[in-house]
């Protein structure tokens, strides 16, 4: 969610970090982090929710698609700890699989959007400069001038059918079955659309840091010794921006998870029968529904709030820890 939060970016004063971050310094950050009770609580929350997502096929008591119309909208019982939804599906299992969706989407977007695209562009722009830099930064300007959510809704609403059709075509030509019915096309669309908007922040931060590093003696001497650009980037620049990358990841996790939920709430994100918190929240959001079956909203709402809260706490604490507080 590109919500009203201040920019999900990290400041890059030169004062923050002057020495390269070695192994021991990461240990220092970790030690500072461990002293913060809130940060540890948030780590525990994230681990539990993501763990639920990873282990969902193993620990879920029911299938997330198994309906039972005899017991629709039932409150918590001994058989269904968190009750059942409108189709009589087990809410606990749905929650676990929704956590899995969140896990998959956040991981994929972090890997592709932040790490791959954002990093590469940031490193290239900062190190190479010139027209490459100008081009990427102008493109980034355009993206950051757009209302992200509105564009994401538009992209997902219009391209959904086409992506599904092309995946279906892929199924036919290769003989691999079950891709469309597993909801893969909607996952693909959601995470590519999100990656499209989540690289800008990372790229800008990395670029700003690289611009400062490029003038430093150790880079200049490495170049003078004839190090290839690849070697300079791999061994001299990358280790020096890694802490920024970690900070940026922790700052954007909540936004990515929130965006997927919002898109699915709108009906343009992950498509049924795949489970998502967005779909669960939508189902529970009517006033009448809330009056008769509040658990339909409160169960996913509680988990989502906890998760976003944990992301916020962790981002804050990590920021402090890296800055030496």
């Amino acid at each position, binding site marked *: 969610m590109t919500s*009203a939060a201040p920019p999900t970016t990290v400041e890059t004063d030169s004062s923050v970090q002057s020495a390269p971050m070695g192994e021991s310094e990461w240990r220092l950050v970790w030690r500072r982090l461990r002293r913060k009770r809130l940060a540890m609580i948030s780590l525990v929350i994230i681990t539990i929710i993501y763990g639920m997502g990873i282990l969902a096929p193993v620990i879920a008591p029911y299938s997330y698609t198994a309906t039972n119309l005899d017991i629709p909208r039932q409150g918590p019982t001994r058989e269904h700890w968190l009750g059942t939804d409108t189709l009589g599906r087990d809410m606990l299992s749905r929650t676990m699989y929704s956590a899995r969706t969140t896990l998959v989407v956040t991981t994929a977007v972090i890997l592709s959007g932040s790490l791959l695209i954002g990093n590469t562009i940031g490193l290239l722009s900062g190190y190479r400069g010139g027209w490459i830099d100008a081009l990427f*930064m102008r493109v980034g300007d*355009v993206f950051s001038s757009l*209302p992200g959510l509105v564009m994401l809704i538009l992209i997902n609403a219009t391209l959904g059918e086409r992506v599904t059709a092309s995946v279906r075509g892929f199924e036919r030509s290769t003989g691999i079955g079950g891709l469309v019915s597993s909801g893969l096309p909607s996952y693909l669309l959601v995470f590519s659309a999100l990656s499209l908007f989540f690289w800008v922040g990372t790229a800008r931060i990395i670029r700003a840091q690289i611009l400062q590093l490029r003038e430093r003696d150790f880079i200049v001497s490495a170049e003078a010794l004839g190090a290839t650009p690849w070697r300079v980037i791999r061994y001299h620049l990358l280790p020096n921006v890694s802490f920024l990358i970690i900070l940026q990841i922790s700052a954007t996790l909540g936004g990515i998870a929130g965006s997927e939920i919002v898109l699915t709430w709108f009906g343009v994100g992950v498509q049924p029968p795949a489970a998502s918190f967005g779909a669960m929240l939508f189902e529970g959001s009517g006033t009448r529904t809330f009056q008769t079956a509040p658990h339909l909203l409160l169960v996913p709402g509680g988990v989502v709030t906890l998760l976003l809260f944990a992301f916020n706490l962790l981002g804050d604490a990590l920021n402090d820890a890296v800055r030496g507080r």
Partner: protein
Amino acid sequence: MTAYVLRRLLWLPVLLLIVSFATFALARFGPGDPIAVIAGQVRDPVVIAQIRADRGLDRPIPQQYLTWLSRAVRGDLGESYAQRGFEVSELIFPRMWISAQLGLVALIIVFAVGVPLGLLAARLAGTWMDPMIIGTLLFLQAIPVMVLIPPLIWMFAVKWQLLPVGGWDGIFALYWIAGVIAIPIPNPHLYIPLVAFTLPGFVGVARLVRITALEVNLEDYVRTARSKGLSEMTVQFKHVLPNALLPLITVVGFALAGIIEGAFFVETLMGINGIGRMTFEAVTSRDYDVILATTVVFASAFVICNLIAEIVYGFVDPRVRIGGSSRS
């Protein structure tokens, strides 16, 4: 300064063109066939070809775009696909007005509540309440709008019957004292939407003000002001606040993004006939010309407000307008 404003202003049409073209291409190229929506049950190829020609959908997309653009700048946004016989513009403008009113009130509240809250939080920094305050702010920010609204409606409108369940009835309502004197009060229809609307916003602003004020509180001139024996109120509002305000201008854009985003949920869940609800309905009914129009409207509003914020920022902070590329 003039050069800076000019540069930012020149950027505006470029952005709007990019946004509208991207939106247009997506709305036209994206869906399998918009004709299928209009034609409905009709499968007669002659009729379909006729509709296609009428709407100009048989021409290449760049050409269609130019036609659409030349009409759009004159306020003609085409005909709605789902609500046949209605111009998109006559559907969209009344709703824009409602959303704009609501958004403006929300924006004012975000800053009016967020700034004092942030100053207060900064005053209490370092005390035992500090972690609690940060924790509470972060927690409030984490509650999604769509989770917040149903309990609020249920509690205030259904259970205690204090407020209307939803709808839109203008910003002000008349409150009659003894049936004789009428005084304008904020319309009760607004209370729940505004709480849901502004919560993430003012919490975000409060956090930012807290961080900035913490730094300003350490400045020498603040210590001097205190040691002169000025009252805490004077110190906070005359010395700390003006210096903590600068970064706030840049978040106007983000606050606005939050409000635009909130409009979707608040208007949809509260039955307010604004542009957010309209977008939601258009997305669910695949009404592409309406989606196109609302996206362009949202994007323009967003871009223009950001531009104003940037220009104001340039006025206040000379460093911004001197640097060649102001947004590295």
